[in-house]
């Protein structure tokens, strides 16, 4: 077992051929959260300066792009205090977020103060909360400016907190796996297992939710259920999520040619789709193209289980895969 190495040492020592999870930390996770913190800080600054929706949209889109670099990482600091849900609460089939935002738009301004706002429902906050204000699909009951500012500030605060937690200690827990005193990861294989789980779950979410929800049943397509439809980002989110997960795989191991090829194929199919919000799911010919993309993602997930899992010597959790 290797001794603990600081991040700096690792980035100097590790080359591509030695890819292992310390590289996932240094080349994927940490830069991903740093970029997300930076993009949301920029969004916050822009919102405090000018909260006009049209003016804020580029900064909001940049923040969403940055989120997709790490959105598949559903472990560690982002799970504390419900931050991941609060950053991106989707899907929201009962429109819980919008109901609470409507109340907040006309509520006592004290509820928008940072500490009070951080106590608001996770459904009402984050990127999707902002999307509903920056790309409104119905008339708003009041000037959205104070709520836009509060939401942008809250988002930046959460992103900064998650980034700080990774830099300030959680990353070391990955590197010191198996060492005395580390009861988060009892061995290095446990870290590989945790990282693999993110990929398997991330691809499942892509297939079942990002693509599966608008596809619905063949007799009952549901284009209105596409993610980030109001902002026109549904397909973009799929492409960026695939790219982020591909990059994560490269940091874990270079020896998975079929996995990387399956990623490339899925990304190519997605990029070739001329349907930014999957509106075509109601038209048989267009729908087929979205289904082909979904099948490419499903096949990709199978290849990940067939090739990447044994390469990392991990699998779906013993109990998580069993059910009862």
């Amino acid at each position, binding site marked *: 077992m290797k001794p603990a190495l600081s991040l700096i040492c690792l980035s100097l020592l590790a080359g591509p051929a030695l890819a292992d999870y310390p590289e996932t930390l240094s080349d994927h996770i940490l830069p991903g959260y740093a970029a997300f913190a930076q993009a949301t800080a920029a969004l916050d600054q822009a919102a405090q300066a000018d909260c006009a929706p049209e003016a804020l949209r580029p900064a909001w889109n940049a923040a969403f792009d940055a989120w997709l670099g790490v959105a598949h990482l559903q472990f560690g600091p982002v799970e504390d205090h419900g931050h991941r849900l609060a950053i991106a609460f989707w899907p929201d089939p009962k429109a819980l977020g919008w109901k609470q935002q409507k109340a907040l738009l006309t509520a006592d301004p004290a509820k928008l103060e940072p500490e009070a706002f951080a106590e608001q429902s996770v459904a009402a906050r984050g990127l999707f909360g902002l999307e509903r204000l920056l790309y409104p699909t119905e008339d708003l009951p009041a000037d959205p400016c104070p709520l836009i500012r509060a939401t942008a500030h809250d988002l930046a605060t959460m992103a900064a907190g998650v980034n700080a937690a990774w830099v300030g200690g959680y990353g070391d827990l990955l590197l010191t796996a198996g060492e005395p005193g580390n009861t988060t990861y009892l061995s290095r294989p446990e870290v590989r297992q945790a990282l693999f789980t993110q990929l398997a779950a991330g691809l499942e979410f892509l297939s079942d939710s990002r693509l599966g929800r608008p596809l619905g049943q063949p007799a009952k397509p549901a284009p209105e259920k596409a993610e980030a439809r109001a902002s026109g980002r549904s397909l973009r989110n799929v492409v960026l999520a695939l790219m982020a997960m591909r990059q994560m795989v490269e940091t874990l191991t270079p020896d998975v040619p079929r996995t990387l090829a399956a990623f490339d194929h899925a990304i190519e199919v997605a990029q070739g789709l001329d349907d930014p919000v999957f509106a075509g799911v109601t038209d048989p010919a267009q729908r087929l193209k979205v289904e082909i993309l979904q099948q490419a993602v499903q096949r990709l997930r199978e290849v990940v289980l067939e090739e990447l899992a044994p390469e990392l010597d991990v699998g779906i*959790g013993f109990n998580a895969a069993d059910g*009862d």
Partner: protein
Amino acid sequence: MASRRAFLAGLLAASLPRPSWADLGNPAFLAAGKRGSVHELHGLSSSGDSLFALPLPARGHAAAAHPLRAEAVAFARRPGTFARVVNCLTGTPLAELTPPVGRQFNGHGAYSADGQWLMTSEVVAEGSAGRIGLWDTARYIRVGEWDSGGIGPHDIKLLADGRIVVANGGIQTDPTDRSKLNLDRMQPNLALLSPNGALLDRVEMPADLRQNSIRHLALTARGVAFAMQWEGDPALPVPQLGLWTPGEAPVFCPPDDADSLAMKGYAGSIATGAGLTALTSAPGGALMLFDAAGAPLATLRRADISGVAAGPAGLVASDGQGGLWSVAPDGLQLLARHPVLWDNHLVALPL
């Protein structure tokens, strides 16, 4: 009906000496697990040491421990057609239980307080109508069966007065491949049976939680805490915990807003002890703690955590990576780590 084989197995069981749990060092828990490619049943001390390990023929689901004698029954994964009763001192199989033709075990069972009877949750293979099989533990001979009061029973628990609570999960499954056949019209319930199997009370789920399958039970001061698995839209936050006092309506205990999806709609095991109720979710990699009134206290993270039970030193949890953990609202403390993938359930032994 007692088959010739069961009769002979029963004779064998009755003729052997019956050791007590004290002969085994008073294990606090039973846990099934997988070591390499071998399935085992372990007896664990309250501090997580393995006191014995016995081979099992295949992956099990849950076990039930005889209250006095050092014997346990390990159930096959559902739908199963075997359960093995083991002498935990020698590892010798005491009996192989086989349900009648057309019935399947559903993974759980419970002994009566005096240890004379074993009750097993079962379904009629076609249609999943629930039955409780009754076995005489002197020779492990089947002596009868009762209607469980619903479809797809899973866990069963005996109250202190001998009445029986059944978690009728409501799900009709295909008898061969476990696929779920009635999710659009399922209706889980909790049934209360007399010690003689008569239906005394039954509560169904409210309409908006009709797809929340009641699976596992833990005893509370006034009845049971029950754990649910959501078969509806996974994006909808629903409670995984309920409390039921017979004669009253069930009370649902949602988590905090921030943790509303932490369990991924799935509670695998439940235990009560030290004023706490713990629920686990292997898919969510989370253990959730509530107080006795059902208010959420903490969400603790550990990958593939699944078993949880109350021992003499408080709640203990097990995971599919070999870890055994002491559970408290301020966190999980590592008790021991074994080269064993701990299976779904941890079973507390009566002390």
